[in-house]
């Protein structure tokens, strides 16, 4: 029994917990499936809006539940999003939830289902999900209308840098649709047979009016589009700060950043919220806002600046104590008083803030720079003395103040410009002179430099020149108005002391003294060369005397100009070197420097002369070279006219370039570039004064080219053309020197021989022997016939007289006419005087018959004639007169010269031999016989000469030479 009781108790103990457990499990409510799920589309935000409810909540309590939502696209199986939504659910409560779709909802059908699970701590775990609700389909394409083409989403607003998806819905074939973004085609992906999507990543802001996105259907001329608005990202306000000027009003400022306004989105608005007072104010401006300080002495402020646009919200916070944010107003009544040449007083006021003091800062500006700065503490009225200023100088004084109890920020500046008063010039003008000797005096030109502003102490009105003779008591003054800086004085040959002072409205400067000595020294000083660097020359000199009070270096900035631009630099007595620099120095220009020593008596004496270039340049031109002394082995080059002084550098010498076909350079030359034949050889002349060069050791009959250029330290002169020289042949020279004299000698001998032969011929074997001189005659006389005599010349009637080498000025007269010859005719070297009447000379008074020279007529000689055909003495004059006509003349000729004519027909030969008169005797040259030719002796034989058969020219012919010819008609010939 006891055992039974124990088993029963154990059984009960086991069953009791089991029963308790069973009760607890049963108390868990069964999963609650969401009901009445409704899904709608909000196109504006591209959101799916879900509504559902939970019925039969256990115990009519509020329960924490988790809803799991699944969203599919196109088909239920293609789930695009799964997520949980946790909320507290009441009995019969309509639950709402939204989901924003990346893809425009009009582009595809969407399906939604939902299930739930208890998430309440009062119910034990594990908890099971309810069943899914049925799929709820949402298709926006049903309500699109009847258009053929749509583009979604409409009027899309996104932030810069985000991504956005577009789609088009077509009612026809997709292949015919092209889409563009701002005119540029974009390519998408086909989502369904009639929908394609376009994904744009990291879109950029372009304009406030948005960007058109449109699609066009090639067929049907359909076009649909939408506008994409890209907003700049709303920035958090920067530099948010608040301050007060009077502890009554706060002014808060900030930097809003980029404006996000678009045509569909207004500029972001700004709102101030103060947490202690719980007050809020909407600001009218984008970057500042005023806040009225409460009268309840609120010390601490906690501001939140909020801003928002359609896409984003931003806010910044600021906590401060009011009295730590005081920035006083700009000071008032800023006045400058008691301004003189060195000092001025400034006064000002501040608006009081309670009993607080103010720290004020006074600044003095000159030429945009702060030259004085001082802090002063004031209550309301401020005052400060500005000192150590320069006369006649523009200044700007200004002042600002800060809250004295706690420094936060300075107020704005208040300023005023002013000018100090003038003072007398503080230094003597820097004076120099140029002295030019004149007969009995000097031309002295005084130059002075304008005083610097710091020394002038005001506007210089004039310069006073006081000239005092040191030799005799004379003195005069000149006043030169500013801004003149030179004047010319003509002085006698005395010593003068000149004082120059500058004057402004407040007084006179110290005087500058110069002494012009009566007798200038004439010391020959050698010019020394100096080398400049860029725009400076370093000069040094040797002091001449120990008591010099200073030195002056003088030069011209523009030495090539007539005005020269005289410059000078005054140096102290212990200075023996200086650097002269000037922006006017140019390269290639020679500058001459003169260094003067100033004696204690203010007399300047020339110490040294320097010359140099800031930078030497190569010569600007080359010498004009001439050649001389050309031989077969040498020639000489000369360029004596080349000026070395006008070059842009010191001429150091000359380079003579020589080119030839020979490989080796002649002695004295060096090949400059062996690989380049055109470069040739060079001879360097180191002496710039050597302006001639003898090129020797050349090859005869060779061609050489030379080119001479000057050089400076910067190099050779400009490139020029080579001049060609050809050396003569050696034999030619020999010929010139030997053969020519030989030929001349031969010619001389020939001439001598010729005259000798003539003489010998005349003497020994003349062409026409003189019968009187012949020994034959005596021989004949003695042996055969004593009656034989020599024909008397008087029996012969000459036909023509040849005048040979008739001297100019001699007078002659045509025979038969008596008509005097003209001067032109008289100057003829040889003239025939026709004795036979011709057409041109019809009035010939008498015939003259000559004889043919039978020496040239073989037939005549064969007749055994002695060569003399005497004219029949019986021929009457009247018969001779018939010869005037050509026919008669021809007949006469036929009669006497039958053989001759028969052997030399006129038509077959070109030459006729006509007889000529014998050369007149030397005694006939000066005076021709003026008697009628009838009286002349014509028995002499004439020499034969060849005459071309041409048209007869009227005698005397212009073409006749020493042996002129009387020419008859063609085919006819007369003696």
């Amino acid at each position, binding site marked *: 029994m006891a055992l039974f009781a124990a088993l029963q108790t154990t059984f009960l103990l086991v069953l009791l917990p089991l029963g308790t457990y069973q009760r607890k499990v049963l108390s868990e409510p069964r999963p609650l499936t969401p009901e009445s799920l409704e899904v709608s589309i909000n196109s504006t935000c591209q959101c799916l809006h879900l509504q559902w409810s939970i019925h039969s909540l256990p115990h009519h309590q509020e329960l924490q539940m988790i809803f799991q939502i699944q969203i599919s696209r196109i088909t239920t199986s293609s789930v695009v999003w799964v997520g949980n939504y946790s909320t507290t659910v009441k009995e019969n409560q309509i639950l709402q939830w939204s989901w924003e779709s990346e893809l425009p909802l009009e582009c595809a059908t969407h399906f939604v289902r939902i299930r739930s699970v208890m998430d309440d701590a009062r119910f034990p775990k594990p908890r099971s999900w309810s069943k899914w609700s049925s799929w709820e389909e949402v298709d926006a394409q049903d309500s699109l209308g009847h258009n053929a083409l749509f*583009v979604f989403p409409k009027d899309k607003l996104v932030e810069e840098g985000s991504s956005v998806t577009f789609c088009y819905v077509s009612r026809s074939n997709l292949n015919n649709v092209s889409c563009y973004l701002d005119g540029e085609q974009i390519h998408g992906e086909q989502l369904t047979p009639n929908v394609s999507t376009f994904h744009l990543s990291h879109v950029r802001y372009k304009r406030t009016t948005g960007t058109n996105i449109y699609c066009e259907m090639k067929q049907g001329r359909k076009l649909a589009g939408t506008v994409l608005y890209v907003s700049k990202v709303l920035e958090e306000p920067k530099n948010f700060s608040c301050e007060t000027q009077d502890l009554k009003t706060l002014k808060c400022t900030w930097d809003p950043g980029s404006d996000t306004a678009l045509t569909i989105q207004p500029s972001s608005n700004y709102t101030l919220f103060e947490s202690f007072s719980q007050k809020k104010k909407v600001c009218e401006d984008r970057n500042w806002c005023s806040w009225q300080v409460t009268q309840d002495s609120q010390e601490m402020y906690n501001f939140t600046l909020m801003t928002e646009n359609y896409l984003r919200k931003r806010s910044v916070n600021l906590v401060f104590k009011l009295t730590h944010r005081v920035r006083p107003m700009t000071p008032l009544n800023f006045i400058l008083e008691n301004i003189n040449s060195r000092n001025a007083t400034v006064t000002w006021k501040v608006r009081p803030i309670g009993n607080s003091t103010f720290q004020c800062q006074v600044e003095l500006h000159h030429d945009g720079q702060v030259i004085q700065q001082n802090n002063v503490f004031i209550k309301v009225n401020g005052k400060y003395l500005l000192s150590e200023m320069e006369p006649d100088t523009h200044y700007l004084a200004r002042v600002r103040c800060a809250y004295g109890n706690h420094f936060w920020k300075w107020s704005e500046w208040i300023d005023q410009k002013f000018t100090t008063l003038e003072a007398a010039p503080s230094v003597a003008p820097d004076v120099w002179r140029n002295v030019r000797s004149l007969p009995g005096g000097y031309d002295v030109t005084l130059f002075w430099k304008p005083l610097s502003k710091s020394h002038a102490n005001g506007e210089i009105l004039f310069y006073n020149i006081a000239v005092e003779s040191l030799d005799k008591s004379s003195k005069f003054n000149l006043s030169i108005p500013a801004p003149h800086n030179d004047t010319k004085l003509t002085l006698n040959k005395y010593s003068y002391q000149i004082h120059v002072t500058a004057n402004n409205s407040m007084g006179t400067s110290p005087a500058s003294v110069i002494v012009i000595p009566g007798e200038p020294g004439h010391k020959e000083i050698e010019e020394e060369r100096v080398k400049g660097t860029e725009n400076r020359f370093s000069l040094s000199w040797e002091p001449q005397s120990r008591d010099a009070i200073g030195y002056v270096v003088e030069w011209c900035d523009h030495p090539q100009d007539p005005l020269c631009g005289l410059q000078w630099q005054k140096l102290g007595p212990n200075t023996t070197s200086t650097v002269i620099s000037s922006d006017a120095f140019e390269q290639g220009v020679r500058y001459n420097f003169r260094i003067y020593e100033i004696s204690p008596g203010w007399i300047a004496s020339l110490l040294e002369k320097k010359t140099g270039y800031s930078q030497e340049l190569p010569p600007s031109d080359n010498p004009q070279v001439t050649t001389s002394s050309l031989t077969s082995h040498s020639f000489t080059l000369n360029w004596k006219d080349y000026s070395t002084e006008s070059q842009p550098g010191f001429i150091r010498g000359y380079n003579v370039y020589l080119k030839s076909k020979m490989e080796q350079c002649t002695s004295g030359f060096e090949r400059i570039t062996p690989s380049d034949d055109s470069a040739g050889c060079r001879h360097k002349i180191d002496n710039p004064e050597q302006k001639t060069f003898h090129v020797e050791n050349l090859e005869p009959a060779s061609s050489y080219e030379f080119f001479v250029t000057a050089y400076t330290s910067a190099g050779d002169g400009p490139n020029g053309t080579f001049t060609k020289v050809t050396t003569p042949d050696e034999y030619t020279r020999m010929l010139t020197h030997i053969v020519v004299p030989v030929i001349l000698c031969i010619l001389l001998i020939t001439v001598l021989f010729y005259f000798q032969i003539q003489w010998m011929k005349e003497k020994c074997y003349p062409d026409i022997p003189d019968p009187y001189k012949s020994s034959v005659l005596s021989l004949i006389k003695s042996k055969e016939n004593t009656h034989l005599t020599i024909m008397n010349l008087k029996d012969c009637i000459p036909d023509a007289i040849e005048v040979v080498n008739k001297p100019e000025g001699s007078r002659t007269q045509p025979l038969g006419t008596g008509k005097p010859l003209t001067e032109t005719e008289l100057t003829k070297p040889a003239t025939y005087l026709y004795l036979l009447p011709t057409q041109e000379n019809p009035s010939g008074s008498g015939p003259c018959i000559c004889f043919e020279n039978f020496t040239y007529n073989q037939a005549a000689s064969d007749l055994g004639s002695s060569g003399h055909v005497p004219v029949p003495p019986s021929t009457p004059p009247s018969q001779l007169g018939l010869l005037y006509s050509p026919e008669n003349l021809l007949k006469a000729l036929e009669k006497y010269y039958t053989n001759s004519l028969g052997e030399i027909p006129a038509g077959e030969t070109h030459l006729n031999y006509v007889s000529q008169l014998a050369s007149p005797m030397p005694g006939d040259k000066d005076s021709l016989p003026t008697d009628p030719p009838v009286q002349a002796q014509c028995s002499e034989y004439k020499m034969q000469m060849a005459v071309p058969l041409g048209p007869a020219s009227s005698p005397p012919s212009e073409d006749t030479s020493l042996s002129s010819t009387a020419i008859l008609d063609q085919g006819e010939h007369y003696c």
Partner: protein
Amino acid sequence: MKVLAAGILSLLLVLHWKHGAGSPLPITPDNATCTTRHPCPSNLMTQIRNQLLQLNSSASALFIAYTAQGEPFPSNVDKLCGPNVTDFPTFHADGTEKDKLVDLYRIIAYLGASLGNITRDQKALNPKDQNLHSKLSSTADTMRGLLSNVLCRLCNKYHVSHVDVSYGPDTSGKDVFQKKKLGCQLLGKYKQVIAELVQAF
């Protein structure tokens, strides 16, 4: 919507300038008395013709200025801005002067209302395009004068004080691209019609 309604209402009041404006008006009988709020000038037809000429001369420039608001408008004028406005009032060029004036009144009333919508839309969508705004305002001003003169003529000569008019679609609820497109279509139609009206008068 309130703003939109107020805009339309004010536009219609401005267009008609008399009591009862804003509702379709029947043509009054010929023997009915007709009065105008303002004295009518004597050379009404000349003024009407000049105003038509003025509108015609500026229509092209207005159309070009409108289409200069980015692609696709400048290069797709034929697709976007074709004058295919379905409910546009008809014009019978072969009718009597009275009939033509009545048709003209209806057309100008339609165009005036549409131009008001375009002006409102463009001021919101293209606030910086002063060139377009000035051209739209100038055209609207001329249309108001023309409408007044046509009404005077109808009233004085033909004793017509009420004409039934219709208006184009309200664009206030449409998306931006659609607003631009509808405005372009209306201006294309206006350019075409105003040339026909000049020929008819």
